[in-house]
């Protein structure tokens, strides 16, 4: 059972629909107690970084931290991944989980921002053995839509280039993040979600 964290920003339907298609049961909650005891957590996200403020005020943030420490598989999508960094210049007062070094910043580019559309992911050396990207050919196309991007630091498993190179995915033990939208990235995205579900199933079987 995958627990989708609802923080009243954006749209959970697409992620849930993709999980259902993969035969994966899911529940949606904003209750810290249910988050703390979840078998696996997914934090979808769109919109402004400041919306993650609600996670702190509702107690969900502490519940997520506890769950991660206990080894609960955790996948952050888009802003959900950005939240795994220290913060974002989009909302300077809002703190991320700081599981990865650095903070998110607006694209430094002359190109149009937001970065919207299909772009390629390139594995880093650290991403060679990525659980999340298992079976995904290098340079695969995935769908992005965002104006802020995370830095390329330790733990980044794949990068993408749009005027500059940024973190497309991160991975450390039981924590995973993707800047792109796997639920909107066709077969490639479904495979990535399936990899996460498989990992979560293995963990809960232990």
């Amino acid at each position, binding site marked *: 059972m995958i627990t989708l964290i609802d923080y009243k*920003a*954006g*749209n959970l*339907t*697409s992620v849930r*629909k*993709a999980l259902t*298609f993969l035969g994966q049961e899911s529940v949606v909650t904003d209750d810290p107690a249910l988050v703390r005891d979840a078998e696996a957590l997914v934090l979808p996200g*769109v*919109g*402004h970084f400041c919306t993650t403020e609600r996670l702190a005020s509702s107690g969900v943030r502490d519940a997520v931290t506890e769950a991660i420490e206990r080894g609960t598989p955790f996948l952050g999508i888009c802003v959900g991944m950005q939240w795994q960094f220290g913060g974002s210049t989009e909302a300077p007062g809002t703190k991320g989980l700081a599981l990865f070094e650095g903070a998110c910043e607006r694209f430094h580019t002359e*190109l*149009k*921002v*937001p*970065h*919207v*559309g*299909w*772009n*390629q992911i390139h594995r880093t050396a650290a991403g060679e053995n990525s659980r999340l990207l298992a079976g995904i050919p290098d340079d695969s*196309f995935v*769908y992005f*839509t*965002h104006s802020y991007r995370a830095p390329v630091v330790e733990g980044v498993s794949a990068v*993408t*280039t*749009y*005027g500059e190179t940024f973190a497309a995915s991160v991975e450390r033990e039981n924590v995973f993040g993707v800047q792109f*939208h796997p*639920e*909107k*990235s*066709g*077969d*490639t*995205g*479904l495979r990535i979600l399936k990899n996460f579900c498989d990992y979560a199933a293995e963990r809960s079987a232990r």
Partner: protein
Amino acid sequence: MSTGITKRIIACLDVTNGRVVKGVQFLDLIDAGDPAELAHLHATSGADEIVLLDITATSDARPILIDVVRRTARKLFVPFTVGGGVRSLDDASALFDAGADKISINSAAIKTPQIITEIAERFGSQAVIIAIDAKRKPNATISSEGTVPAEVYLAGGRVATGLDAVEWAREAESRGGGEILLTSMDCDGTRTGFDCPLTAAVAKSVNIPVIASGGAGSGDHFVEVFKAGCADAALAASIFHFGIHDVRQLKAQLQGEGIPVRLPC
């Protein structure tokens, strides 16, 4: 430097009474099939996104058909935009709940522009597409500054607004719109090519993606709209529905012309 991002090919399903239809210059509708089946077909053959427009929701003053949206979204795993008759935040919420990733607003955005901001604040700008139906002003010429005089219409091209297309696109962006879907009413359904000068004028005046629509009839037209028209994405309906052009074949041609595209695996 390579941007990495690809030009998007978007398949559009114009829907009325739950069926996909195709008209010429917004009129004379003929049946083209089932929305869910066609959406799946296009996605499988390499369409980067699917747009479903309920083309008579506004003129019939009724809400969009939620069950059609839900059914179409169920097994669709590429971005899915729904438009037609979105009048309020509640309308938009119902569509997102039914599986839309983005909503497209046209008439309501013109009548009450604050709706753009309301939806963008709740669901993010990336989820708000501003659809602009524009018609070149008769006898107007393109000025030396590259402006292209075109007037915005609402209610599916039935009502002239007096708004200038470029000005309105700028305002829509400033209010929180995430993309512009620009349809040339002059070219729509003619299969004689997109309105490249108008598309370029809008694309250069905003910093959000512009989707060109209206007039696609051959692969060359897509090449033109990505090069001369500066479009970030291009949309077409009829040429895909009847299998005249399949997306895979179109993308191969674009790639051959040096236009970056996502080739289906």
